[in-house]
């Protein structure tokens, strides 16, 4: 069905189901309960999970599949955001033109940057992408200010042109009249579930993006990309020119990033230069590796976990910690809180960095590999050699050299 075999179709169905039920899955705790702060089921967070999932899926095609480590994809995220906001200003608050332009512009950008950067491989490639990212950031911040509005960021105003919008059109980002920000709340017993239009728009697009990546993984093109990662030299000695393949992968991943940027702006119509900083590119690297580079589900998993944890950890400040550990004698309580508060609240990035280091060092296959190992413990079946690369991402060089 849809060009997928039976196994993949089931996989896709599961993914669709999980996505549709996200508002339930991320809100497991009853309102007002002690665990309620661990709920994640509100629009902002759910949207970000979907959006960064898209970003990571695209990045994974370049990094996990083809083996090229780019720190510069934040630039495409930024380009996508700026393009979308310009559409909101010029054409309509309907998000369709914005998203279309975001994908097109970031594709062009990626073609340019990719063409130049891919002339080198390995570290040189990574540093080139780094240089481009920083350059784009600086350009957006201080040079191309008519386009980007520099530090303040590009915002929409009531008196913007919006050629396509009639007088009765929504003043908020919408999809043919359905505002991104509107939600339907459902109360079931003690639980409150939020069904947000914006999230479902992102989710549908994410599913389509996931489907496309699934097709790519299973295609001869995907196999060629894996060949590039595995042994680029052998590939060229087999009569294949790696350059167009890597460029195609680069552009595709750039367009995914642009799509994510456009969606970010669609949910929150503001585009700022900070989205283009290379550290944002670093974040998507972390997500992909944490989840499992080179696998289908890994990047989405990584995006979800990180955005969720980021949310939770940031909310745990000293007061909350004191509340938890109040049962301890005072001295011990202060000590424990003191130690833990380094890692929580504003210390989230510290925890993230440590987690990342641990994953790179001990579990390079990310959460997917971890999950397989745990499942293996229970099943006690001998590991079969015939599984496809999705389920056994062997530790191999991440960069084609």
């Amino acid at each position: 069905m849809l060009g997928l075999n039976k196994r993949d179709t089931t996989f896709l169905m599961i993914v669709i189901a999980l996505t549709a039920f996200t508002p339930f899955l991320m809100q497991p705790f009853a309102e007002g309960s002690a665990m309620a702060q661990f709920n994640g089921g509100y629009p902002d967070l759910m949207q970000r999970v979907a959006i960064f999932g898209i970003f990571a899926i695209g990045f994974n095609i370049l990094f996990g599949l083809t083996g090229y480590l780019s720190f510069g994809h934040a630039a495409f995220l930024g380009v996508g955001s700026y393009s979308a906001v310009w559409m909101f200003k010029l054409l309509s608050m309907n998000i369709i033109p914005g998203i279309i332009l975001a994908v097109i512009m970031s594709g062009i950008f990626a073609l340019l940057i990719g063409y130049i950067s891919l002339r080198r491989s390995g570290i040189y490639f990574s540093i080139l992408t780094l240089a481009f990212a920083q350059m784009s950031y600086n350009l957006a911040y201080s040079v191309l200010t008519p386009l980007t509005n520099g530090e303040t960021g590009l915002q929409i105003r009531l008196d913007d042109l919006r050629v396509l919008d009639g007088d009765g059109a929504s003043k908020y980002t919408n999809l043919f009249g359905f505002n991104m920000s509107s939600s339907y709340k459902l109360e079931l017993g003690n639980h409150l579930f939020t069904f947000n239009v914006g999230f479902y728009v992102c989710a549908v697009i994410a599913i389509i993006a996931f489907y496309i990546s699934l097709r790519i993984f299973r295609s001869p093109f995907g196999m060629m990309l894996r060949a590039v990662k595995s042994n680029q030299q052998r590939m060229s000695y087999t009569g294949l020119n790696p350059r167009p393949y890597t460029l195609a992968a680069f552009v595709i991943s750039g367009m995914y990033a642009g799509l994510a940027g456009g969606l970010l702006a669609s949910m929150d119509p503001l585009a700022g230069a900070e989205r283009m900083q290379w550290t944002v590119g670093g974040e998507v690297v972390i997500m992909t590796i944490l989840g499992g580079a080179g696998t289908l589900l890994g990047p989405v998993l990584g995006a979800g976990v990180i955005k969720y944890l980021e949310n939770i950890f940031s909310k745990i400040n000293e007061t909350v910690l004191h509340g938890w550990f109040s049962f301890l004698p005072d001295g011990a309580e202060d000590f424990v809180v003191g130690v833990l508060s380094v890692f929580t609240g504003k210390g989230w990035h510290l925890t993230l960095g440590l987690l990342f280091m641990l994953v790179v060092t001990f579990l390079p296959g990310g959460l997917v590999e971890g999950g397989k190992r745990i499942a293996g413990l229970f099943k006690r079946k001998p590991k079969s050699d015939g599984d496809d690369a999705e389920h056994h991402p062997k530790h191999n060089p991440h960069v084609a050299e």
Partner: protein
Amino acid sequence: MDQILLQILNGLDKGSAYALIALGLTLIFGTLGVVNFAHGALFMIGAFCAVTLQKILNISSVVLDPTKTDFLGNPAKIKTPYVETWFGPEMGASIIDWSVPLAIIFSIPVMIAVGFIMERGLIKHFYKRPHADQILVTFGLAIVLQEVVKQFYGANPIPTPAPEAFKGSYDFGVLLGYKANAIIYPYWRIIYFGFSLAIISAVFAFLRFTTFGMVVRAGMADRETVGLLGINIDKRFTIMFGVAAAVAGVAGVMYAPINSPNYHMGMDFLVLSFVVVVVGGMGSLPGAVLAGFLLGILESFASMNEIKQYLPGIDQIIIYLTAIVILLVRPRGLMGKRGVMEE
């Protein structure tokens, strides 16, 4: 002409910082074959050594003086640094004033220790792993280090002034026959430049004229052979890492008065330093140093008003543009060895 000289001078302090960091990066890459994304963090830690020493020296005893009041109407607090109590007010104040240069002495063992711990604890395990993994784990380390600093020192830049004696500027112009005040340059920056030259010379001399240095250079050229010769290259590499860390750290210490240390200065300098290394030629020590100074001066020229008029914002991107051009036209950099990592 005086403008040109001024810009050259202006580019020297940043160029010195780039050169020193790039030098350390190249040492680590050339000897250990490791790409160290945490090197900028070492620079930052050095700068914060200066901050720490300044804070320590300023630890004061607090005495309440009932005769004076502060603006809230409470008895004024008279803070007397312990240093002044121990050494007398003049000596004590002088010590505090010189906290930055003193921090050099303080920071060297600290940085060497940090370098040792990093190498033995982490980097060592990544020698055989592909470059991408090294980049990733050191990137993670850089984030961790910067966040730790942020936890303890806050997110705001902390001014760390240079000693009073060096606060003014020197009128170079007069020396060269120009009008007074045509070319003036802050004392401290001159010192920084001279200081970095001294360190660079010391490192080169060390590598050239000592047996240890010779072994390291041999290891840079062909690590496997050196190992086969029965020389324990590992220990020497650890020491080399410590040295590289110390160089970066000391560069940071001395830079503190120029640019108030803040927690993300490491990352800021890191990207540029990698660019410098690539332009100079990965694996080439003289290339790294040369490229550092050149790019610093280039950046300075690009920020001249005359140039900014025609090419607005060029100063922000000139270094990256240069790197991109060089990577395409001459991928081995200005002085890199032919065939090293070429496509």
